[in-house]
């Protein structure tokens, strides 16, 4: 059976299909491939959109969290800074008042009386001096500058280390700086009390 006999029994479409089979196959493949690509692309876009949406939602949640945390942290930081200042002030006043009250008590107990105080100095205490034997002055650093906290004694204050005294000013180097301090207070003569760190 030759080719013309074979075509006689077929419809025109069938004949064309047989003749251009390689081309038909190629076109079908391309169409199928394109359809596949199209669906993949749609899926890919939908999937990416989904991811993007979740990323944006994540970002919004993080932004909202930061919007709450940052101002709150700022407010609490300010409150704590002020509290810190008040604590330092209270510690300094306690230290100064303890030294003055004890000195007066020791003075009136008579010559040779002595005691040792164990007190905590705040970390902003830069230096301590005695002026004119009646002013105990603490230099403290604060967030708004250096201030002098002064305590007045009704008894004459001095220090045993004469090298620390110059004219009417005696320094107490052991009192500067933070931490626990042992302060020896002694009635050294009939008219004065020595204050020293040990």
């Amino acid at each position, binding site marked *: 059976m030759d080719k013309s006999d074979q075509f006689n029994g077929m419809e025109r479409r069938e004949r064309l299909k047989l003749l251009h089979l390689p081309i038909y196959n190629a076109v079908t493949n*391309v169409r199928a491939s394109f359809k596949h690509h199209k669906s993949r692309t749609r899926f*890919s876009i939908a999937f990416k959109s989904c991811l993007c949406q979740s990323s944006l939602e994540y970002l919004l949640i993080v932004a909202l969290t930061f919007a709450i945390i940052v101002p709150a942290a700022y407010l609490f930081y300010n409150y704590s800074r002020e509290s810190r200042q008040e604590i330092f002030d209270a510690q300094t006043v306690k230290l100064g008042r303890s030294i003055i009250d004890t000195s007066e008590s020791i003075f009136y107990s008579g010559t040779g009386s002595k005691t040792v105080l164990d007190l905590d100095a705040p970390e902003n205490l830069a230096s301590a001096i005695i*002026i004119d034997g009646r*002013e105990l002055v603490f230099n403290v650093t604060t967030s708004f*500058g250096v201030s002098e906290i002064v305590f007045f004694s009704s008894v004459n204050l001095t220090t045993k280390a004469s090298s620390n005294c110059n004219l009417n000013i005696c320094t107490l180097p052991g009192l500067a700086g933070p931490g626990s301090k042992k302060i020896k207070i002694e009635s050294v003569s009939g008219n004065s009390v020595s204050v020293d760190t040990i």
Partner: protein
Amino acid sequence: MRTKSYKGHRLLCNLRSQASVEFLTTYAWAFIVIGVSMAALYYFGVLDFGKYLPQKCNFPSQFKCLDFSLRSPEVRVRLINNLGEDVQITSVQITNDAATPISCTVPVTPITWVSSAEQELVFTSCSGGGFITGARAGLKISMNYYAINTPSHPIHLVNGKVDGQVGSI
């Protein structure tokens, strides 16, 4: 066949580009809306967290701050002498951290201040340093004083800070 596949590839690329552009356009609008909202909040002062802070007057407890007022162009501070001694105020200064610090007419000194008494320090004609109505001001006040009963009259320095919203008289 290669030509058709190439066309398909181009079409696929176009689709992706379009999706990207659409995505960017959508979210660009979202970002613009968020940006404009934030700018509006900032403009109306909602994001100025400083105004939520309390108004404070900080002085060492030996000169405890009882009250204060910041009313442009005047600053008033009421302090109490907790030293247990009569003192003489030799000078008073007021300043702040601005590039051009605040300038005021300071109280006339010397001021004799007896123990446990209150003293109002009034700074008038204040200008500069961002001291304007509605703004928040942080002012540093310094005082020099000496104890009247101390023979050598050593000068001591005390610093305080006033933080608050400036009002108008």
